[in-house]
């Protein structure tokens, strides 16, 4: 399996540069009544994605997060254990597609959005979904990959599914247009490069540097991203 695509814009939050627009400024256009619902994770997702959006554009989106708002769910379970009633707001914002929903409301992006919890396929799962949408005829797709550190309660060994920093990466992909031509492919060699939270810093290094390719192994196969020579 091999897919060629064009990488349009991409952005990461926290930003790599110190002169980036501040979080408050990026979120300034969001209505107050909506902004109060944004968790710290939702805020970094918005900050990563906003610079990738064209003004007034409607774009199909693929969100991917290994853990989502697990910290919120965990807090609610503690509340239930204490015999108290859980907050309806906290519940509504803890579901895996909560951030995608808020994003859709904030930007009136009312077309398709998909939210994936990718497991061992890591960031590749969102690319597979996005390639499918492009093959179905969508002109451009927004991919947003995000995770925050796993709550201490959960075991993180022997797995590789958390890092110490939150990270959100947004990118737009298309078949035609301006950007970097890339190739996404399936390969047979196996290994273990961890799940999405561990892969995100590797993706950022790949995008931000001259590095030609990124190869991420799973226990069953591997996925490769290559920048193509123009």
């Amino acid at each position, binding site marked *: 399996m091999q897919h060629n695509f064009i990488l349009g814009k991409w952005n990461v939050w926290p930003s790599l540069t110190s002169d980036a627009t501040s979080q408050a400024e990026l979120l300034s256009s969001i209505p107050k*009544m909506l902004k*109060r*619902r944004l968790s710290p994770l939702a805020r970094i997702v918005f900050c990563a994605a906003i610079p990738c959006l064209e003004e007034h554009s409607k774009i199909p989106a693929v969100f991917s997060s290994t853990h989502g708002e697990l910290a919120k769910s965990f807090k609610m379970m503690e509340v239930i254990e204490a015999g108290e009633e859980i907050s*309806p*707001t906290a519940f*509504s914002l803890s579901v895996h597609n909560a951030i995608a929903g808020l994003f859709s409301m904030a930007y009136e992006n009312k077309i398709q959005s998909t939210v994936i919890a990718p497991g061992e396929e890591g960031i590749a799962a969102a690319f597979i979904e996005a390639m499918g949408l492009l093959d179905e005829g969508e002109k451009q797709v927004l991919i947003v990959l995000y995770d925050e550190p796993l709550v201490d309660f959960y075991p993180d060994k022997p797995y590789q599914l958390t890092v110490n920093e939150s990270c959100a990466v947004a990118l737009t992909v298309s078949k035609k247009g301006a950007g970097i031509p890339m190739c996404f492919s399936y390969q047979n060699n196996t290994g273990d490069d961890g799940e999405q939270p561990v892969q995100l810093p590797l993706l950022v290094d790949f995008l931000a540097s001259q590095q030609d390719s990124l190869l991420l192994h799973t226990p069953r196969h591997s996925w490769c991203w290559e920048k193509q020579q123009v």
Partner: protein
Amino acid sequence: MSNMENELKQLIIDCLDLEDLSIEDINSEEALFNEGLGLDSIDALELGLAIRKKYDVRIDQDKDDVVNIFASVASLAQFIESEQMRKV
């Protein structure tokens, strides 16, 4: 203005993450939902829970006139006070 109304305004600010408002910003007669303060259905559930916890008053959507009770701070205060009187 009744104490209950002020208490409710503070409760609304605290439980609905409206920290940039103060009780002076909320008019007791103003609509809480939609065009007024701008609360939504999730806020209604959250506020119902907060009222149950604080005043031990349950607003039952099968038997109470929920739309009118939640119309404004004044109507909510009136409902809670009458429920408390009924229990005494």
